[in-house]
């Protein structure tokens, strides 16, 4: 197993865990026009949910924007996100996994990696870009599991030089 040394100091604790009792679970049907990722800001906030696991179960998008992992020529990080790939639709979302959490007290983020079919039939996958994946007719479906009394919070990680989700206990 190849291990890489990142630019910053490695924190001693390598696995961070926040447990919670079981909490809400529900299905979501996203309608045409909704942003695949941004839609969860209002849906989950309205239910008082600050952290969740989201599993996408199919849908059609008007277009898609995504990135992948590529070497970082600047050396600031070992690797970073590629320039965005933007493709017109219809794009078929096959499946995807996402984590919903907080950026700051007023802002949420849905971090989503997914696999999808482009209009010409090519299957691709990657990190979807918020605001760049509008849902088309007939919509998209997802299942949500709340993380209960825990949530994910963005924090700067000095080991990798990324702003990353980490689990926290919800006050």
């Amino acid at each position, binding site marked *: *197993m*190849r*291990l*890489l040394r*990142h630019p910053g100091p*490695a*924190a001693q*604790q*390598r*696995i*961070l*865990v*926040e*447990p*919670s*009792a*079981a*909490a809400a*679970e529900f299905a979501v049907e996203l309608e045409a026009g909704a942003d695949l990722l941004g839609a969860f800001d209002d849906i989950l906030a309205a239910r008082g949910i600050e952290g*969740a*696991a989201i*599993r996408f179960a199919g849908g059609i998008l008007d277009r898609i924007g*995504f990135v*992948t*992992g*590529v*070497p970082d020529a600047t050396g600031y990080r*070992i*690797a*970073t996100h*590629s320039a965005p*790939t933007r493709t017109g639709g219809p794009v078929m979302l096959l*499946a*995807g*996994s*996402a*984590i919903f959490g907080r950026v700051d007290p007023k802002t949420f983020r849905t*971090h989503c*990696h*997914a*696999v999808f079919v482009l209009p010409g039939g090519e299957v*691709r*996958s*990657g*990190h979807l870009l918020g605001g760049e994946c509008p849902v088309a007719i007939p919509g998209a479906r997802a299942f949500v*599991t*709340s*993380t*209960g009394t*825990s*949530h*994910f919070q963005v924090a700067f*990680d000095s*080991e*990798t030089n*990324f702003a*990353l*989700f*980490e*689990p926290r206990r919800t006050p």
Partner: protein
Amino acid sequence: MTGGDQPGVTVGKFARVLSVRVRPNIDLIESVEKICADHGIRHAEVRSAVGSLTDATLRLPSGEQRTIIGPGLEIALTSGRVAPDDVGAIQARVYGLVSDSAGHPHGGEFVRGANPVFVTLELVLQEWLPEGA
């Protein structure tokens, strides 16, 4: 009801939900097994996993193992479960896709000890309590 009248059917309920971050250079499968062992969880399901691997080693249907070289392979999809093996040891079996730098997906079962986290793994696990277990 345990589902015992239908082979292969187990009735149960979901319980604790664990929000997790795994830092770089820790193996995906070993981390899931350690987390469950540390929390006294014998059965669990992967609810979501988003992150990246340095390299990925996947078991194919033939049993062959294939390694995709990164770093920065995006974990695009996972499904999996944790359950005791024949001798009672906690064992995670996780399947999924990783995305290479060109956006091409590569699928299979993640091989224990061969899938190091690159930048982060954000993970939600949920305990499963089978009746009669």
